[in-house]
């Protein structure tokens, strides 16, 4: 029997049939919906390349069964920018050279967006590094990644400060 799930991906409501109930959210995104910005690095929850937001919280899409995300709201890298305007974290990654080969980058950015919304790391570089340590970058662009997250945090708190 084919299971069918309903979810919202980047604001678009979808109804997706699942031939195999063991399909992961990562394979659902990449192979069924055609959103290949989310990457498969290790397929076992240890590299972070597949990080997406599930109802605003960062998760490893490779460890999440698609069947379990019925009724949720998923945000991937493709849904982050507003039209041509990059999300502040995306812009900060460009500005601070937060990548080399780019393969881990989308996961890094989604993880950073999640980290900032968690609000625990603040502007403390050590806590940001710790909070980002689930996303490995073999090119070791870590100085740029840390600087980008710090900068995005600063911009975010400034804009929150002005909007109050």
């Amino acid at each position, binding site marked *: 029997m084919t299971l069918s799930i309903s979810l919202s991906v980047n604001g678009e409501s979808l109804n997706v049939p699942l031939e195999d109930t063991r399909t992961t959210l990562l394979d659902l995104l990449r192979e069924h919906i055609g*959103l290949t910005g989310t990457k498969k690095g290790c397929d*076992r929850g240890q590299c972070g390349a597949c990080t997406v937001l599930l109802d605003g919280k960062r998760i490893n899409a490779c460890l999440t069964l698609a069947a379990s995300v019925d009724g949720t709201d998923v945000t991937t*890298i493709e849904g982050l920018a507003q039209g041509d305007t990059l999300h502040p974290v995306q812009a900060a990654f460009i500005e601070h050279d937060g990548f080399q*080969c780019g393969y881990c*980058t989308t996961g890094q*950015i989604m993880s950073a967006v999640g980290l900032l919304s968690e609000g625990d790391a603040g502007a403390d570089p050590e806590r*940001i590094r710790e909070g980002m340590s689930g996303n490995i970058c073999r090119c070791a662009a870590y100085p740029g990644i840390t600087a980008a997250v710090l900068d995005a945090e600063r911009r975010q708190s400034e804009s929150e400060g002005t909007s109050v």
Partner: protein
Amino acid sequence: MSVAKPLPHDAAHLHVTGAARYVDDIPTPANCLHLAFGLSEIAFGTITDMNLDDVRSAPGVVTVITADDMPFENDVSPSNHDEPLLTSGEVNYVGQPIFCVVATSHKAARKAARKSRITYDEKQAILSIEDALAADSRFEEGPRVYKKGDAASAIGSATHVIEGAIDIGGQEHFYLEGQAALAQPQENGDMVVMSSTQHPTEIQHKVAEALGVPMHAVRVETRRMGGGFGGKESQGNHLAVACALAARATGRTCKMRYDRDDDMVITGKRHDFRITYRAGFDDTGRIKGVEFVQYARCGWSQDLSIPVADRAMLHADNAYDLPAARIESHRLKTNTQSATAFRGFGGPQGMVGIERVMDHAAHVLDMDPVAIRQCNYYADAEDGGLSAPRKPAASPPEDILDPKKGEDLASRGAATEVRQKPGDSGAEGQTTPYGMAVTDFILGRMTGTLLKTSGYAARRDEIAAWNAENPVIRRGIAFSPVKFGISFTLTHLNQAGALVHVYQDGSIHLNHGGTEMGQGLFQKVAQVAAARFGVGLEAVRITATDTGKVPNTSATAASSGSDLNGMAVKAACDTIRDRMAAHLAERHQADPATVRFADGRVHVGEESYSFAEAAEYAYVGRVSLSATGYYRTPDLSWDRIRGAGRPFFYFAYGAAVTEVAVDTLTGENRILRADILHDAGASLNPALDIGQIEGGYVQGAGWLTTEELVWDDSGRLRTHAPSTYKIPACSDRPDVFNVALWEGENPAETIYRSKAVGEPPFMLGISAFLALSDAVAGCGTQYPALNAPATAEEVWRAIGRARGQVRS
């Protein structure tokens, strides 16, 4: 001008929006097939029976390919034709591909691949260096030896003699994007292959061989890789050839990507080494002579092990003027993954050997480790090294003698025989152990600067004071230099080609033989093109590496990408520019030499045109706006058998100071601070170069600290996922990380006087290892003889050795 600017990566916008396509992201037809290998479960033996019935009948399986289904070449070796894609007889390591499943999905292929029933006649595997030496299992007929002077007698007459050994572990590449390839069958038996490879020409060659077609029937395209690090120089051959075979057999598009576990189990890694040493010093710390024996564990096939082991020998001196040296290298054949290229290509292992000697000698002589290094340095070039005089090559460069038909000449493993050359290299002054004059040395001055900016002396005192008060958490600090030779040691690979078109609207299409793996090569080369035409970068479109556009390319390797391709692109651009200039000059009756290309305009006499107008005039004037460019590195001459000549065009330099803290109860440790001064010549792009330096350092430190490969007694790799193999994470980078570029031009005539930057910074990570050695040595009175990787366990054991205790 667009060069020397800190511009972001060319695909920056694509990367942050997820729009950058890697092989696995390329849209495929609905009927695309997926491949998976069935792997050997034993390390050494012979297949006695292969029952694949359950594989063939598994859901989704379309066909299964074995060695019997390969009518043409069954070989994916980049060197010695000793590596079948699929084996049917002898099995040589756990993880060797035996058959290939072609199925309707990736999962179906992988599931089916596990259903085989294969029986083996198992034999005693050769796994360790000891096993290989006992069985005399090796590549080449015996050890290779490079010599300078009489090392034995120099050591014999020295005041102080030290000897010891160091084990240096291998390293998994762990490119975040695993190996991947996609083959699309074309009309007339042609094949188009998309491959995540550093070496499209080699993929083209191996696919053509396997299909029994000329190279012109195969086109290989590589837009980008999600990391390479040397792991995609030869290790992608298997997937590309398998896809091409399956595509030909089925007439359908075929794709293969390794699951991470498969990738780590199947593919080769950095060579692990054991190096034994004996060295003599005088009272001032000046080295009199040194002997190294390097044992490289090469795995089961030759792959690129010969040039890797050669490069380890060529870096046994690192930055030090050795009056007498003997370097002996054993290339051992073992029943493990075939070790392959990895950033530094043997250089790092060779360099660790001499840095260990310096560290050990400083301990024995009770000298400051920096002082002993400085007193052994080559002398600095007098004037900053600009245009140091150089003797012309004494003999023609190394060449293949009578290349065998079908030989893969574009591979670094291609050197099977070399022409013996008479006479010495003719080098004068200070020379390396292989007789190359060192004329561009700058580490004396660089070291002085770095010691000042890092506050080395004061921090060393401060750390000593801390350690006197704190017996549990001890700190250590160390300095290490890098001198790295730039050029392929197989001389004929030092060539590159480019193809440039200017369209009638003034837009520029750029192609060259280099591949992009994150290092920023495409951006650097585009900066060169924009600078030559005097236009903005937005006018230049960088296109995927394509064997149909630029043929006979070398791998993007040996740090040579920008040096070679930058020059080739410059040549192509200048050809077109000269034609445009001549055309405009004629029109204005001006001297073509006075035509200037700047700020998006072309100036001739009093007149000025936009670049687009100039392009249009040239087109209408029937002037060709397309050109190829070609470059070959000058001044190279190398005899690898004798170990004599000038294998490198120049050296790249760097230096680092690292401080660490060690928990002496557990061996746990972390890097507190790193200060780096690195020489990228006149940098083409400081932002990209600093990224390479930071990343290289962290990757090098990872190699020597946390990255441990473990094989069990049956030859099975037990560290085959990030759960068991620890690469540095964001929290592992130094808390304080200061990276600066040395201000200086390359004295050699390179593209805009820049220097290669891919590999050299990797070896700056050696300072982290030496800092751990420093912290550990302070725990006792004995020299701790730290081995690599210095995992927490190894650090804990070494603390025991420093205290004269045995810990296991």
